């Protein structure tokens, strides 16, 4: 007969947190940053169909890293929450704060009561009517929430990226410039820029006439943005040469055609630790 071991609550939480953190650190990073007319969501993602960035509602975007099936469940729950709320009341009554609360409660409940925590980190971005009302919420695996100001990075290299961007403010820059800064920060330090084929990007754009402000940026559109931004890119440590070519260099291991998970966890090349 086996005797159950006593595990202190501190130890239990620590173990769970460590488990979740390890899972997240294996994934490639996602960066969300503001620009003058909206918010850019940017991810390193070789798959063009398994998204890490998505539309939740008219002015709310979603970005996630970690285990695909887990954040996909949360994304769909968010879409359902937003659509049901917008239908029951009005489109204007769907707010990122309400959605973030629901996510936080769910993540916290899973973290403490389920046998295994969600290995995900999430950003909920809300586009305000004016720039001052833009909101970026970062949610962790344990349900803790942070309200970020200018930019927020999640995933394996989140800290490195945040450090790189610490002195930079993109909130008053045009789209192309902010996008180039984002791609630079997401690319390996001192190395070449990530080719656009390995990037997934979308923008919440205040200037669109439609009520839905979320639009995905295609590979050619991203290449064009990088080309536009090139003159102003000199302040970064590495000029963006070669980054503007859409067909780009092909030294990346996980090119399209590889049906691996979207978060790139199959290969740990991008891992921080």
């Amino acid at each position: 007969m086996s005797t159950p071991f006593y595990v202190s609550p501190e130890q239990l939480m620590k173990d769970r947190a460590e488990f979740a953190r390890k899972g997240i650190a294996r994934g490639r990073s996602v960066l969300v940053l503001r620009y003058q007319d909206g918010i850019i969501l940017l991810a390193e993602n070789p798959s063009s169909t398994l998204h890490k960035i998505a539309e939740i509602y008219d002015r709310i975007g979603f970005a996630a890293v970690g285990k695909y099936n887990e954040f996909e469940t949360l994304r769909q729950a968010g879409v359902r929450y937003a659509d049901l709320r917008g239908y029951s009341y009005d489109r204007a009554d769907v707010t990122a704060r309400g959605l973030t609360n629901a996510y936080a409660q769910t993540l916290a409940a899973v973290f403490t009561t389920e046998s295994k925590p969600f290995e995900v980190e999430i950003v909920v971005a809300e586009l305000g009517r004016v720039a001052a009302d833009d909101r970026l919420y970062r949610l962790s695996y344990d349900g803790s929430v942070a309200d970020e100001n200018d930019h927020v990075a999640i995933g394996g290299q989140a800290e490195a990226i945040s450090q790189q961007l610490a002195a930079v403010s993109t909130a008053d820059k045009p789209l192309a410039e902010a996008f180039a800064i984002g791609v630079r920060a997401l690319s390996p330090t001192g190395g070449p820029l990530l080719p656009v084929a390995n990037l997934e990007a979308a923008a919440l754009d205040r200037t669109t006439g439609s009520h839905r402000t979320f639009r995905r940026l295609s590979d050619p559109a991203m290449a064009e943005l990088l080309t536009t931004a090139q003159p102003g890119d000199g302040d970064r440590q590495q000029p963006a040469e070669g980054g503007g070519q859409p067909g780009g260099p092909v030294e990346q291991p996980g090119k399209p055609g590889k049906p691996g998970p979207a978060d790139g966890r199959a290969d740990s090349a991008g891992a921080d630790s």
Partner: protein
Amino acid sequence: MTAGFDSHYLSSTTNSFLTFAQQAAPEVLPRPTAGIAQVPQAPEGTTIVSFKTGHGVLMAGDRRATMGNVIASHTIEKVHAADSRSVIGIAGAAGLALELIRLFQLELEHYEKIEGTPLSLDGKANRLAAMLRANLGLAMQGLAVVPLFAGVEPGSEAGRLFSFDVTGGKYEEVNFHSIGSGSGFARGSLKKLWHPQLEDGAAVRVAIEALIDAADDDSATGGPDFMRSIAPVVHLADASGVRRVPESEVLDIASAVVAARAEGDRS
């Protein structure tokens, strides 16, 4: 789990908003109330016309809703963009019709967000037919709604249009169609004026002519109202998306039509 998303949100596998809402919050949906002896009188919307143009489809509707012999609204809008590639117009009980449009728009958007890709045009039309079938209970009580649906398939130049009946029957129309109380007159007009290669401006004019003919002979259909500057709603859908023709532009064309008829003594 007491806080956060309840289990419906996390475990649902449907990509339909309607199905999800039926599971999670059935009270927000319109539903038939059993055993109403007499249906209360409610506003009804009237004439909608739609036809293929040179590179897409057009749909237009008058602005009147009637309740018996009373005009319930001069400004109701019965034609709406369903999504960025298709339009929907509805005749019948106005309250239910507008709700059905709202639900259908959300259904398409919800599918697109959950699946990451929009429905095909046939898929949208079938979905609409299924939603009508679900409304059959109300239709049997006299609150029938009949939509007209048109759009372009992504990547295609040709428009397509579908008509429906209250039981959820779906019929693809070849060139043009009209629904509502003034539809007979409007269709007669379209038979003479429509041709396959109409450009946008000419197409709007044909639609206005048809609606003026319907308003002329059907008391429940309203013509362009120059006194209040109320013009029919006209939507064009083509490969570049759906756009509503500005009201001022429609009014200009309508005055040209009226002037031409006065001159030719065709009134």
